[in-house]
């Protein structure tokens, strides 16, 4: 009974915050609602006895990815008005289409009974969650894990290939050979200067600078 109530509470919060991610005016609050959505789904996972995944969701998504998102959103100067242009104009059509899809889905599901035969093995309580997960990941699911690593490598290569510009003027490289072979005379030069400078010559060239 309590679990059912909890499930609905979490589900309502989840759906509400997911909606707010899309509809809220300020991108910062969108990101914060996304954080709420992640935390709530982590709670739902906790109710399914998958503690490890729930914690990973919070640590990785909320702790790392969302903070990065917040950082990027704050760094970039996003013009919210141009981004939202046409939102209200297209809203009625979008709502109409959404309702049609929803009604269709509900009709299909109500029309014929849903048959669910059996369920995946119930998680045993004797072994810890992380232990079980690690066990299947490196035995039964070793192939997809290897493939996921290839996808990560691809992401790395692609990100570098798309953003790195070797001809960029602002790029700063260290040329170790030049650094090592540098001599004092390259960096340091003796110049003869008069010891005293007359005050008149120090007149400011630009009045703006004085201010």
């Amino acid at each position, binding site marked *: 009974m309590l679990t059912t109530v909890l499930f609905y509470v979490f589900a309502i919060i989840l759906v509400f915050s997911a909606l707010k991610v899309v509809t809220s005016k300020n991108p910062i609050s969108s990101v914060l609602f996304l954080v709420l959505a992640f935390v709530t789904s982590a709670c739902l996972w906790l109710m399914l006895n998958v503690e490890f995944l729930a914690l990973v969701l919070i640590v990785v998504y909320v702790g790392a990815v969302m903070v990065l998102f917040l950082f990027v959103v704050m760094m970039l100067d996003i013009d919210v008005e141009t981004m939202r242009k046409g939102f209200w104009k297209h809203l009625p059509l979008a709502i109409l289409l959404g309702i049609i899809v929803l009604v269709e889905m509900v009709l299909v599901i109500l029309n014929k009974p849903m048959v*669910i*035969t059996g*369920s995946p093995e119930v998680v045993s309580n004797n072994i810890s969650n992380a232990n079980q997960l690690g066990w299947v990941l490196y035995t039964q699911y070793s*192939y997809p894990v290897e*493939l996921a690593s290839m996808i990560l490598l*691809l992401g790395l290569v692609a990100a570098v*290939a798309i953003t790195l510009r070797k001809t960029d003027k602002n790029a700063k490289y260290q040329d170790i050979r030049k650094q090592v072979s540098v001599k004092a005379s390259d960096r340091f030069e003796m110049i003869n200067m008069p010891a005293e400078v007359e005050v008149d010559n120090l007149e400011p060239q630009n009045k703006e600078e004085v201010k």
Partner: protein
Amino acid sequence: MNMNIIPALPEILMAAMIVLILLVDAFVGEDKKSINTGITLIALISVYIVQVLVYNPHTQLAFNNMFILDSLAQGMKLVTYIVSFIVVLYIKQYITDKKLQKGEFYAIFLFVILGIMVMISADNMLILYVGLELLSLALYALVALNRDNIKSTEAAMKFFILGALGSGLLLFGISFIYGATGGQLQLEEVIKYTYQSDVPNNALLVFGLVFVVAGLVFKLGLVPFHMWIPDVYEGSSLATTTIIGTVTKIAGVVFVIRFLINGLVLLSPQWSLMLALLGVLSLFIGNIVAIAQTNIKRMLGYSTIAHMGFVAFGLMTVSVDGISSTLFYTIIYVLTSLAGFGALTMLSRGSYECESIDDLKGLSKTHPIYAGIILLVMFSLAGIPPLAGFYAKFKILEALIAVGYIKLATYTVIMSFIGAFYYLRIVKVMYFDENTIDLRLADVNIVSRSVLMLNALTLLVLGIVPSGVMAFCLKLISG
């Protein structure tokens, strides 16, 4: 637990070659970047050899049955290697001229092939999805690699967002099938389950199927999930368009066969109707909208949509003849567009991009050989006998009529007639218009040029004696 890794050796070798090319690229100087082309070609040849060596007539499973090496996987992988090898020969000069970063380009290209290999020999919905993501991510990167071109950037963005949507639909559908079958992702287990249960009355299964089909045809580019194709074809550099227009089609078709035939074949009454509807729409939109195009890449994009309509018709017959004709059609389509894109890349010298139909005006006077190649390609795409494209279309029609879809076959013929218009217009522009543009050839070496000519001749030869390839396709299906 079956951890036999021998059948997966080609994949492992390919992954190793990717890492090798990344390492070599990091250490060679700017002037020696052409070594990357060599490594890519060597990678493809060695993977081909290993693939032939690991073959044995029985179906082999690996990695806890998630990996399958049956005759379909073996045959289509070999075709993929050959096509990829030819693609590299065609685009290598183009990549040098356009200053696309070589090492990264080839590494990401090999990632594309690895993704295709994984998809072709997947026996589990999870692996099918992971392979698809590997392929799609690599393709997004390839499109975006031409980063100083605003069109490419836009195309990459559209491709990425729509592709993510397609993957989302597919995953949503898979999750329903997973629930309906009591937690099965393995394709043969799904079949076993559907044998035992009352399929048409299981709303959950059919509900999931709708989303799976939507996700699958998104990747094939059937109407109404085709929006990304014309933009991506037009926006990418010709090298990337060549890759997207050829090798990935093989992966797409085998992907659909794995999902719908190997996994959900007992739901065929449901999905063949969906494919029929999508095919009808694709043939219509693809052929009609292509008429209005002035950019060859965009036109070929719409032509792809129409050709994938044929593929959908071939699959919906659910007969051995139908499926093998679909494979034959795919192979012929890939070979044809390979020659077409190859000719276009070779006509793009320096920073120039041969992409407007007007660029081809009077090509027969300046470059008669290239005009001849494009002529063969266009005739084959239009399905004019005695070229291979005709026989491929004929086999699909035969399969359709054999299972009684006479009206659908008639419709297909009418649409092919309409489609012939825009293919023939290219031929008219090349042979009957006055030459206005001084189109010069890129510095392509003699090997690539002769491979292109052989490729175009193959279209003619396969049109006259198609039985060998047809028997090959039949063997892939019947096993």
